[in-house]
């Protein structure tokens, strides 16, 4: 299959005889989803005709794509929701044609999932990346309190770069990262929080303003994704950080290669890796079985929990276990 995400990857290889599986990705060029997508493409090779769609971060578009996929005769659907609350609409459409649906990466309400016995979920809980990020921050803080607590008040003075407001991941990561730190008994003080819309350039510019305003007061930079973390690092470097003994702990989420590189260069403290390979593989495994009318777990090692979900955990990545991150790109 083509790496640019040829939609009907199986088709060119005489896949017309293979069962058709319709898939939507919430946004094709999302760092993380691009890996999941590849894992899916790799896993579907020779087994199914995978019809991939880019929902362009627009739930209405995704609904339309589902219509198209059903019209094209998909035997099962693998859906990466844009908006988790829209699951019901998709289930309604699938149910009407008795097509199984595997949601992945963005988790629908469990009650909605329970409403259709052919609906499953593969992925993590949205909150988990935030929780892991929070735990990582707490651990780092406690280990380096001498160095990190610049004003010595025992509180973390942080700035937070948020993704697109209203985006489920942005909201969950923001809330759970901070809450987790607090739950660990560490006091925090939010100096500033602003949206950089997932964007590195905007993050650089917000960070420029914050450095000008708070300068030495900032003790931690929390970013909802690695892209914004990198933007913040560019701004910090400009302000003289990461040279000599001027340091700032920055954390992100996604474990993109550039972030791993920054961690190795000690310009970033850590990030959170989501296991793209296994998410993609599990999704395809379930979807393939469903398309063939088999039990979804048949011939696989995956297990379903009470809410009919296959859980693929997040992993914290710091300099100590950087190889885990690198292996994800093998």
């Amino acid at each position: 299959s083509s790496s640019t995400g040829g939609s009907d990857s199986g088709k060119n290889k005489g896949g017309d005889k293979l069962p058709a599986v319709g898939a939507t990705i919430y946004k094709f060029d999302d760092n993380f989803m691009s890996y999941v997508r590849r894992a899916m493409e790799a896993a579907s090779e020779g087994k199914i005709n995978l019809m991939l769609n880019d929902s362009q971060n627009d739930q209405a578009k995704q609904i339309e794509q589902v219509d198209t996929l059903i019209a094209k005769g998909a035997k099962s659907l693998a859906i990466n929701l844009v908006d988790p609350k829209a699951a019901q609409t998709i289930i309604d459409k699938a149910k009407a044609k008795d097509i199984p649906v595997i949601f992945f990466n963005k988790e629908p309400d469990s009650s909605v999932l329970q409403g259709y016995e052919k609906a499953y979920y593969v992925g993590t809980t949205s909150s988990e990346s935030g929780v892991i990020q929070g735990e990582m921050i707490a651990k780092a803080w406690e280990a380096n309190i001498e160095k990190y607590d610049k004003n010595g008040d025992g509180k973390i003075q942080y700035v937070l770069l948020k993704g697109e407001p209203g985006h489920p991941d942005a909201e969950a990561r923001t809330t759970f990262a901070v809450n987790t730190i607090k739950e660990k008994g560490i006091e925090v003080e939010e100096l500033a929080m602003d949206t950089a819309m997932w964007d590195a350039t905007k993050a650089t510019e917000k960070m420029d303003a914050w450095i000008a305003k708070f300068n030495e007061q900032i003790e931690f930079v929390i970013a909802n994704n690695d892209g914004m973390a990198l933007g913040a690092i560019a701004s910090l470097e400009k302000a003289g950080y990461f040279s000599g003994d001027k340091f700032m702990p920055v954390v992100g989420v996604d474990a993109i290669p550039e972030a791993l590189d920054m961690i190795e260069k000690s310009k970033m403290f850590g990030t959170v890796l989501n296991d793209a390979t296994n998410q993609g593989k599990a999704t395809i495994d379930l979807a393939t079985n469903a398309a063939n009318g088999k039990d979804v777990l048949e011939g696989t090692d995956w297990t379903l929990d009470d809410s009919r979900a296959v859980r693929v955990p997040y992993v914290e990545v710091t300099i100590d276990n950087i190889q885990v991150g690198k292996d994800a790109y093998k």
Partner: protein
Amino acid sequence: MSTQAMKNSKITKWLFDHVIYVFLILLVIGIVIASPDFLSVTNLINILSQSSSRIIIALGIAGILITAGTDLSAGRMVGLAAVVSASLLQAGDYAYKMYPNLPELPFFVPIIIAMVVTGLFGILNGVIVSKFHVPPFIATLGMMISVYGITSIYFDRPPYGAQPIGGLSESFTKFAQRGIPIGDYEIPFLIFYAIIFSVIIWVIWNKTQLGKNMYAIGGNPEAAKVSGVNVAKNIIIIYMIAGLLYGFSGTIEAGRVGSATNNTGNMYELDAIAACVVGGVSLSGGIGTVPGVITGVLIFQIINYGLAFLGVSPYIQFIVKGAIIIVAVAFDMRKHAKKK
């Protein structure tokens, strides 16, 4: 000229004047050749129902374009309407309600509330354009940014914060998702809403004083003033009507998707404006028809649907879509170029 030549030239002229309909047909033929099973009732219904809310939005924008204005805030207004109506349309027993104590309202109440809200923003647009003489591009760009802020504030609130607003009441999702069964098929209600609004707008444009004034303002604003047209008032009404249409459209977007976020509707305006232009609406004002607008939207939707149906890779879809838009309009422009 012989009568034969005369006839030929008439046909040529007709074709030139209706080149965009010809383009639509060629487009469909192209897709069918690539994939014969494109020709199915299901696909037709899908395309029409997907076009419905876009047609309603495009009709709103088209009126504004005809007055030589533009509206970049359309998409964000759709989002505002979607969020407002969804928040008032949650099922009584849904666990994550924005207003936990709100009883389930009859579905037309939230629709009307959403329309009133966007109608008011439409009026505001119109006032800024006509009373403060801010170029429509800037007025509505500012509004687009501000409305997004307002929608986000409304959206990101206790008890659940910035969560997609789901759990819409069944009476409402029926209104947006179901249809009238005819034989083996179900004709979605959406299509009927689009038809109803198209007829209403057609009547306004062609049979009322407001409509004539709208063309006059776009055709020659100075002359309109001299002709005794209250330019400001009419512009405000046109923007208001657009606002009302966005309001309705936003509500059915929420219903169609089953939920709404502050990102709903993002960038719809660009597609709508482009569809209008493809459908023969002039960006410099004074020219445009309802059938043209509908054709423009259908062309867009057939491109979108057709490319996905053909299984073209998503990135290639972008390239092809951009190219088709340009080619369609270049085609259409030949009728003007010919004059030389």
